[in-house]
């Protein structure tokens, strides 16, 4: 296999148009068929600038169907595994962050070594190069693995009424997620440059302000000190969703952003929480989420919650290692083993849980009083315990999109903002689809995906919108250069 750039035209007459403008033939390495030609690496450097606006540059990627097929295939492989191997895989998945797991936190390196070897042999995970200790270090899980089954927690006995002394809620993460999605989409185009003080240039702040419909920004306020958009910027930075190109000083979006925002609002919120809590604490998060879900509009007794967690699924937090016939906590080589008993739970896991609860208060997901915690509005939503009705969005033939509160997920907002600028942020937000937005979108997606994003929440996408987007895509894709196409060596 080799990676090449392929130039493709919608109809063959386009070749002569290109030839009339540039010496295309000098850069053609191979002809795949009447409409596709492999071009050499100098094509982009020498000819592309002269063909500005006539060639759409795309990045090869797997289609949603291909991703789904891979997931199904891996799911079948997982189902065929031995029960105890599967158990190790699921534990690894639950402990993993961004598909990377630390072995000693997820399994017993001695007793589960065979399972780990089997999982690696099946290409379900791979030991990373810096794995110094056998079976203890970092492993990369296959990105297409289906999610592990949810753990069945029963916290019914911990549910109680809300108490009067619960603290006031802090700002929750849902609005932040939406703002991060908006800002990220806006940063994509036009490219934003940072000064050497690591602040966004004033001119770019103004441009961002226009696209974000943030008048104070477009009037010259600084992005970093803006109460709303500065917070969103810090959020993106904290999650390493944007990076700075040292040479051009341009901000670039991390490709993982879409994966973080994917799914329903609750899913995006959950991923955000997992990324924000300390690495060794995030395994506690599902238990808190389950408790909030079961509490609904009520609260949770913290002591009872801890007892139930210990009795039901203590090993979710730490796997018990078997050493000399005794259950002990995971430890580094050379450290003393600590017994995996009830007293230790209070000393270790209970403290971890309380630390997580503390972080969740800061994230605006829960409110706490001594011995009690309850979900905030966002917390209940995250726990799927309090989502209200979701109004539809409206997409009109004049290419405007009206987005009411709680109508779309952060992922959908990211996509909508990529397709056009925000015209107004108010009780409802207004966007306008624009050709340039779609063309940028087409560099990574297809027009059918754009239509799918719009029709997902809109009761009936007007035919005019479909036809307009398809017409834009048709014009933009008359000549396409696809980078990173994998082809057989002899093609």
């Amino acid at each position, binding site marked *: 296999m080799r990676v090449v750039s392929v130039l493709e035209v919608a109809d063959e007459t386009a070749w002569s*148009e290109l030839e009339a403008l540039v010496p295309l033939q000098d850069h053609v390495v191979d002809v795949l068929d009447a409409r596709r030609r492999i071009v050499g690496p100098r094509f982009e450097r020498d000819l592309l600038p002269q063909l500005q606006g006539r060639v759409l540059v795309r990045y090869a990627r797997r289609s949603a169907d291909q991703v789904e097929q891979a997931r199904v295939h891996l799911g079948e492989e997982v189902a065929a595994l031995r029960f105890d191997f599967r158990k190790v895989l699921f534990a690894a998945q639950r402990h993993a962050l961004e598909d990377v797991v630390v072995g000693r936190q997820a399994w017993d390196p001695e007793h589960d070594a065979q399972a780990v070897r089997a999982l690696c042999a099946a290409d379900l995970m791979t030991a990373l190069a810096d794995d110094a200790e056998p079976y203890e270090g970092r492993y990369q899980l296959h990105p297409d693995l289906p999610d592990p089954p949810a753990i069945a927690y029963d916290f019914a006995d911990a549910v109680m009424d809300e108490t009067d002394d619960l603290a006031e809620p802090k700002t929750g993460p849902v609005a932040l997620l939406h703002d991060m999605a908006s800002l990220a989409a806006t940063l994509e185009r036009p490219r934003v440059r940072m000064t050497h003080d690591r602040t966004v240039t004033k001119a770019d702040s103004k441009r961002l302000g226009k696209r974000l419909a943030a008048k104070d920004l477009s009037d010259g306020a600084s992005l970093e000190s803006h109460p709303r958009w500065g917070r969103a910027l810090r959020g993106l930075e904290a999650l390493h969703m944007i990076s700075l190109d040292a040479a051009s000083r341009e901000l670039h979006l991390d490709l993982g952003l879409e994966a973080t925002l994917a799914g329903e609002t609750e899913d995006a919120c959950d991923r955000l929480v997992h990324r924000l809590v300390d690495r060794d604490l995030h395994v506690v998060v599902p238990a808190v989420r389950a408790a909030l879900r079961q509490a609904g509009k009520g609260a949770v007794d913290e002591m009872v919650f801890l007892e139930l967690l210990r009795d039901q699924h203590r090993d979710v937090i730490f796997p018990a290692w078997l050493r000399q016939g005794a259950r002990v906590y995971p430890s580094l080589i050379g450290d003393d083993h600590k017994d995996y008993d009830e007293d230790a739970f209070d000393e270790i896991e209970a403290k971890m849980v309380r630390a997580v609860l503390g972080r969740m208060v800061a994230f605006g997901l829960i409110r706490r009083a001594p011995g009690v915690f309850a979900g905030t509005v966002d917390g209940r939503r995250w726990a799927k315990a309090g989502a209200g009705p979701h109004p539809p969005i409206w997409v009109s*033939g*004049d290419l405007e999109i009206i987005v009411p509160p709680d109508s779309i997920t952060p992922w959908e907002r990211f996509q909508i903002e990529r397709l056009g600028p925000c015209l*107004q942020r108010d009780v409802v937000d207004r966007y306008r689809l624009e050709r340039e937005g779609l063309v940028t979108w087409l560099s990574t997606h297809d027009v059918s995906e754009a239509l799918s994003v719009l029709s997902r929440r809109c009761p009936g996408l007007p*035919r*005019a919108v479909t036809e*307009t987007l398809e*017409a834009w895509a048709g*014009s933009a894709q008359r000549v396409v250069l696809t980078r990173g196409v994998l082809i057989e060596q002899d093609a």
Partner: protein
Amino acid sequence: MSYVPDNPLIAQSDHTLLLETQSPRFEEARDALLAFAELIKSPEYIHTWRITSLSLWNAAAAGHSADEVIDTLKRFAKYPVPESLLPTIREKMARYGRLRLVRDGEFLRLEADDAADLAEIRAAKQLRDLFADDLGDPYAVRVLARKRGELKQVLTAFGHPVQDLAGYDDGDALAMSLVERTPDGKRWHLRDYQLDAIDAFQAGPGAGSGVVVLPCGAGKTMVGIGAMVRLGMRTLILCTGQIALQQWKREILERTSLTEDQVGEYTAETKQIAAVTLTTYQILTWRPNKLAPPVHFRLFHEASWGLVIYDEVHLLPAPIFRESAYLQARRRLGLTATLVREDGNEGDVFALIGPKRFDMPWKRLEEQGWIATAKCVEVRVPLSTEDRMAAVSADATEKYRIASRNARKGAVLEKLLARHADQQILVLGTYLDHLEFLARRFDMPIISGDTPAADRRALYQRFRSGELRVLAMSKVGNFSVDLPNASVAIQVSGSWGSRQEEAQRLGRILRPKEGQNQAWFYTLVTADSVEQEYAERRQLFLAEQGYPYRIEAAD
């Protein structure tokens, strides 16, 4: 945030109102909004309205209170109404009626409820010349009668609308009535909404001046004729052009008891001043040189007019506004499809012609069959390989020219003429040489700026009578040409950026039709060209007006 899914209204803090058309309460809310908001656009799902100072003053002039307006907003709101909106509504509406203009012998008197308002006005430099003398009364000041319009205009711009209660000079009486049958024997009468519009024009405080808003094709001319007949006074009618003038004249003679000698034309060719006199904006604003005043303004003052009708008031030229400032003692009726002016001078219409007296959603007229429903189709026509190669290296202007005159549009036009073989068709174009080429090819008569008026009238008459099935028209056909039997319009080229051109061209085919009451509006656009990009603005306009459009490939 409380959310009432079945309610249709979303009030934004910038005073725009969004109305969901799918809501079960949509029509109820839409009718309620007409009183105090202006419809900005009406695409499929969400109609956008705006509350402005003028819309609130119009509401106050019609007798609505701020509490009513706020109650309407809250009653239909899907989400809580932004708190910042409510004090603005109260404050703006409270302004209307705080200043009143009343008769005071040969003068007028500006009265105020609040001495502070008058003190502020007295202090304004721009207003000093308008006052006759200070009465020493903190609540009133005397105004020169001839400054009536100017005073209202300036105060409106200042944010102090004046309620004009000074009344009107009755013009010379003119006995006339509506006839029951048109000359061809057809029975006719004013439609209910036309009668409602006439009633609204003549009712309430300050009645006798104001604007009636009705969509293209809804019979605004009939409202003007009805108002004129009901008043029974000498009338001056200002039209947008010669063709429109002829249509007014024809309708007046066909629908009223007035005779030829009672209806005069004041145009470049004829200078008749009769009991009812028709003239055009062009002739009124004509001046022998740039520095000279418009010589025909004397028409306004040469007869004792009881009513002045301004057709398409949103197109009223600035000089006529200025002259209208001196006509404030005459009754004034503005007719328009929209209060939105491209020049933003809506305030002058309010101050000098009068507040909005009547408005009706076009959708309701369409539902009732009073205007035709229109299907808008854009046909994408590819360029020939030869033309495409020529366009590759052409500059922007040349690219547009090549796209507009795309030779393949002829074949598409041929198919459309065949598709609508039983209907009367207008072929509209901007590039005359292309239009002439098509006219020769399909043997259709053409009306352009060079066509003498008499020839135009004859061609229009042949089209109206059904003798002509297809008629080609250049830009001259955009305005106020009444061809009620045209049910298909095909645009072969256009200056697509112009909203006005689009509305007027569409308006040509919206008159109610026999049978299905359906009109077709085609636009031929060269695919993948700069023309296609321009055409997108046109699509936006159509969508905003609530006309769904489709895109078809030529093949």
